[in-house]
């Protein structure tokens, strides 16, 4: 393949992924509201379009047309930069996550991943760390007490859970012998899913992702009864939409990451059982990837509308005294498994 072809194929993949991703972010907001209404025995959004299906677009246009208020007490450059960082970081992680196997299309061999980076996991961990800056900047630069407290809480929470997240990933790397997400998915062939081999690591990673995305029961940075809106108290218009979309984008990214690392990524055991070949196999594998993400997203939303919020000391205790030792234990467990069974 010449350089032009590679660039064109890459651009097509990026545009396709970005548009599907943005659409799913918009609709995850809609699904959150619908599931919330089911959980609380209400109807939910049902006015814009059939059953409210056009609601996300109405919301985006509403926010576009709202006045952007930048408080006098705020630090203006950082105040503008913060939602930019939050949203961009949420998008960028998706570049290394594989959503399907290698396929042959129109005579080209195409890998169904934007970039097969050999240190993809480090890239993901690095970018999720940058997300802390977006929220801390927002909290600090708003010039509001609520925002400051929310921002500081958020940074402490995110870095605490990042440690257990990193250690949980260690177990996955032990088995796959690679930092590339593509290789990690390939290592989980058939039913060799990491969630089955190392359930403790799966649980610590799942709980840490809840904390990283600031979702209930860990949504203390924006706990509305005590902090009004937390770090985005002073945001309005498209900048607020930036944070709002970033939260849902992070949820999808976390689901995709959990799927890739622990639930076998695009691996679909049915393809092997029924010996399906060619295009149908690829379609089933990509479909399996999307269904896994959708189920995890539903789980995220389900938890939010079922559980109460933690107290801050409980959150820190859970992170350092439960999740961290469990993640260490998980690494030893995987190391022993490899020693004993030579997997």
């Amino acid at each position, binding site marked *: 393949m010449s*350089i032009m072809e*590679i*660039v064109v194929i*890459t651009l097509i993949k990026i*545009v396709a992924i*970005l548009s599907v991703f943005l659409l799913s972010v918009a609709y995850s907001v809609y699904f959150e509201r619908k599931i919330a209404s089911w959980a609380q025995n209400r109807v939910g959004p049902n006015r814009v379009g059939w059953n409210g299906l056009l609601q996300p677009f109405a919301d985006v246009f509403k926010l*576009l*047309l709202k*006045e952007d*208020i930048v*408080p*006098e007490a705020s630090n203006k450059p950082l105040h503008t930069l913060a*939602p*930019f960082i939050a949203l*961009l970081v949420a*998008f*960028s992680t998706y*570049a*290394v996550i594989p959503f399907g196997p290698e396929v042959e299309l129109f005579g080209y061999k195409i890998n169904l991943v*934007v*970039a097969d*980076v050999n240190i993809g996991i480090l*890239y993901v961990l690095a970018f999720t760390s940058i997300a802390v800056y977006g929220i801390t900047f927002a909290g*600090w630069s708003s*010039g*509001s*007490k*609520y925002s*400051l407290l929310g921002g*500081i*809480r958020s*940074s*402490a929470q995110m*870095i605490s859970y*990042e*440690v257990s997240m990193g250690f949980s990933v*260690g177990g996955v*790397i*032990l088995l796959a*012998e*690679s930092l590339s997400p593509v290789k990690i998915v390939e290592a989980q062939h058939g039913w060799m899913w990491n969630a089955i081999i190392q359930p403790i690591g799966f649980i610590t990673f799942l709980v840490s992702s809840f904390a990283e995305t600031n979702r209930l029961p860990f949504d203390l940075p924006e706990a509305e009864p005590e902090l*009004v809106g937390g770090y985005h*108290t*002073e945001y309005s*218009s*498209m*900048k607020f*939409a930036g944070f709002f979309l970033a939260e849902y984008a992070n949820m999808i990214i976390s689901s995709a990451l959990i799927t890739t690392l622990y639930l076998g990524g695009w691996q679909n055991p049915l393809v092997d059982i029924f010996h399906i070949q060619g295009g149908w196999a690829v379609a089933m594998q990509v479909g399996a990837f999307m269904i896994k993400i959708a189920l995890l997203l539903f789980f995220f939303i389900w938890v939010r509308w079922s559980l109460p919020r933690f*107290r801050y000391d409980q959150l*820190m*205790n859970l992170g*350092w*005294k439960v999740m961290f030792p469990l993640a*260490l234990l998980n*690494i*030893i467990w995987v*190391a*022993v498994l*490899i*020693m004993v069974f030579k997997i």
Partner: protein
Amino acid sequence: MLMLTEFGKVFIFILLGAIFVTIAIIAAKLVSPNRPTHEKLLTYECGENPVGSPWVKFNIRFYVVALIFLIFDVEVVLLFPWALVYKGFGIFGFLTGIIFLVILGLGMAYEWRKGDLEWARPHPIPPELDKVLSKKE
């Protein structure tokens, strides 16, 4: 020959994402109204005029947590190379890893024992029934 590395693709991805976010924010600036007044630009404090500096003092615990994070996150980075080559080293690799993890666990236990992981928590004193009754008598 000119090649596009995998990181080049990541760069294009980030670039397109950045362009999209910039367009969204600029578009909002163009179409939205802008009529600021002094009251509108005040910091939100439940309707009252804001009191004092917005950059209030916060709990020193946050700082301690950041320090502990720094130590353990570096250890995560040290653990990854070991995990990558573990399968090829057999019992030697296993023992090395266990020694490393035990030292790490000891550091954790030390911090735990010293109370650096404790967060100031509320100590409610629930009323006891026999005391309430003895007061009445």
